[in-house]
């Protein structure tokens, strides 16, 4: 999506008092996702307070913070997955390539903004059918092209070599790490512009985690990635940008090396150094 034209770092827009110090202004083309004054409620209870944040295109953005800080809720506003919860409500501006998300057809939005969940959730179908599901939903006819797309997606998720000989076996026969990569392949099959990952490695062992992190690096050339994680090392390893959430507020948002080496807010530093959370 015109990413090669702007190889320079797509930095978040300045947010002087909301999230610490100002960072260089966005380059032409604007951020992939821009969030302005987002307030989020479950019924009468406010979960997110005045969030302002920009997600740079084809970069990895990590969201960290203690449990219950609202980072997963925030992630679920980016593809409007919160709408499955009755009486959940988002207010503010959510822009995808400058287009207002809240006004979009929700199915169309989710085709552009894919999601991978904390617990891998393969459908009780074959491996092939899991990956083909999104394609079928989007009107692909079965046939050679569908099979090619499935293979391509499984390759992108670095799973092809492990499953190519039993594509028609149940997805539940795979290991936890493989299941999570299958879910990533499933999300990639519809070729989303943005991929949201909600603690994708929290149920995985270190080896499976390393594989997924490696995979994220290969994906960011073609896809904008937002990842929620509990694991600060993971955020530091994979993400160019990191946002720190606390009690429903975005405390600080900046390049990861700034956040982890030289945070400007005391709360961020306390969290990163393990003083709470």
């Amino acid at each position, binding site marked *: 999506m015109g990413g090669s034209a702007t190889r320079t770092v797509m930095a978040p827009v300045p947010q002087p008092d909301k999230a610490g110090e100002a960072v260089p202004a966005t380059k032409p083309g604007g951020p992939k996702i821009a969030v302005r004054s987002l307030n989020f409620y479950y019924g009468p209870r406010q979960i997110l307070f005045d969030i302002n944040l920009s997600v740079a295109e084809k970069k990895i953005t990590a969201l960290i913070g203690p449990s219950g800080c609202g980072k997963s809720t925030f992630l679920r506003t980016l*593809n409007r*997955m919160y709408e*499955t919860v*009755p009486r959940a409500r988002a207010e503010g501006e959510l822009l995808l390539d400058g287009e207002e998300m809240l006004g979009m057809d929700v*199915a*169309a939005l*989710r*085709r552009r903004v*894919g*999601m991978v*969940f904390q*617990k891998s*959730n*393969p*459908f*009780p*179908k*074959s491996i*092939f*059918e899991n990956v083909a*599901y*999104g394609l*079928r*939903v*989007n009107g692909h006819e079965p046939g050679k092209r569908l099979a090619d797309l499935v293979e391509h997606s499984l390759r992108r998720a670095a799973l092809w070599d492990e499953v190519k000989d039993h594509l*028609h*076996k*149940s*997805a*539940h*026969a795979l290991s936890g790490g493989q299941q999570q990569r299958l*879910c990533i392949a*499933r*999300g990639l099959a*519809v070729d989303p512009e943005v991929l949201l990952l909600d603690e994708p490695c929290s149920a995985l062992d270190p080896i499976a985690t390393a594989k997924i992190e490696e995979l994220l690096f290969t994906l960011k050339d073609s896809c904008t990635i937002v990842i929620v994680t509990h694991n600060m090392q993971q955020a530091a390893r994979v993400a160019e940008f990191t946002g720190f959430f606390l009690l429903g507020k975005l405390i600080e948002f900046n390049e990861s090396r700034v956040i982890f080496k030289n945070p400007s807010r005391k709360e961020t530093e306390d969290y990163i150094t393990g003083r709470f959370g």
Partner: protein
Amino acid sequence: MNYRLLWRKTVNNIMLALTGVCALVTVAILFFILGYLVWNGGRDINWAFLTQLPKPVGETGGGMANAIVGSAKLLLVAALVGIPVGFIGGVYLSEFGGSAFPAVVRYTADLLNGVPSIVMGIFAYTVVVLPMHHFSALAGGLALGVMLIPIVLRTTEEFLRAVPQSLREGALALGANKWRAISSVVIPAAFRGIATGMLLSLARVAGETAPLLFTSFGNRFWSHGFNEATSSLPVMIYTYAISAYEDWHRQAWAAGLVLLALVLVANIGARVILARRQSPARG
């Protein structure tokens, strides 16, 4: 001190034994009934019994082929009435309902489930038999079908609810709309359970007699189509059992055995379907 220990041990053993005995009684009753039916009716089950019509009074032999086929016809009508309504209603309860209306539906379904079966018969008699001026398989099937609705509704709902929310979200996250997610992911994930529930509920109404007494009535000959009085196994058992003829009594036992065998087969079949865990999914 020792007495107290001994006492505790004795109570413990007695209670354990009691629970075991009660569990055993339950099992024993089924086997007693089965054994009794086989003992009394087993000899009379033969090819003629399964394939011939009843003989006129006074003649020995003959069979209940028309009742076996009649029961199948009634169950077919019942399934056509009860399964679609119950299934689709169950999908609504589990997937679409808000909070107030489904609660009312659920409560009503439980009440409907508790309506005595003979009342269902009167209902079908009033809405079908009276306007048509004759008994029919349609009327009997409707009575059984109405009994199916609440059972299928609740089992469908329960099995759908057991499908993890994460599967729904997974489908929605790929751009599926709600109905697509339900029809292509949620229902297939629960299908085995739902099918089992349907089979069990059919087996349950297959033995109902009261709703059929004045709806499908009975017929000593073949009934043609669904618009004539139709014989069924439960009503046949009832009629033969209260008759004065020794030969008919024996045939009633045999019919009871056939009916129980069919119900058991359906039950066991359902368990087998349910027990067969995630076999490799097909394309």
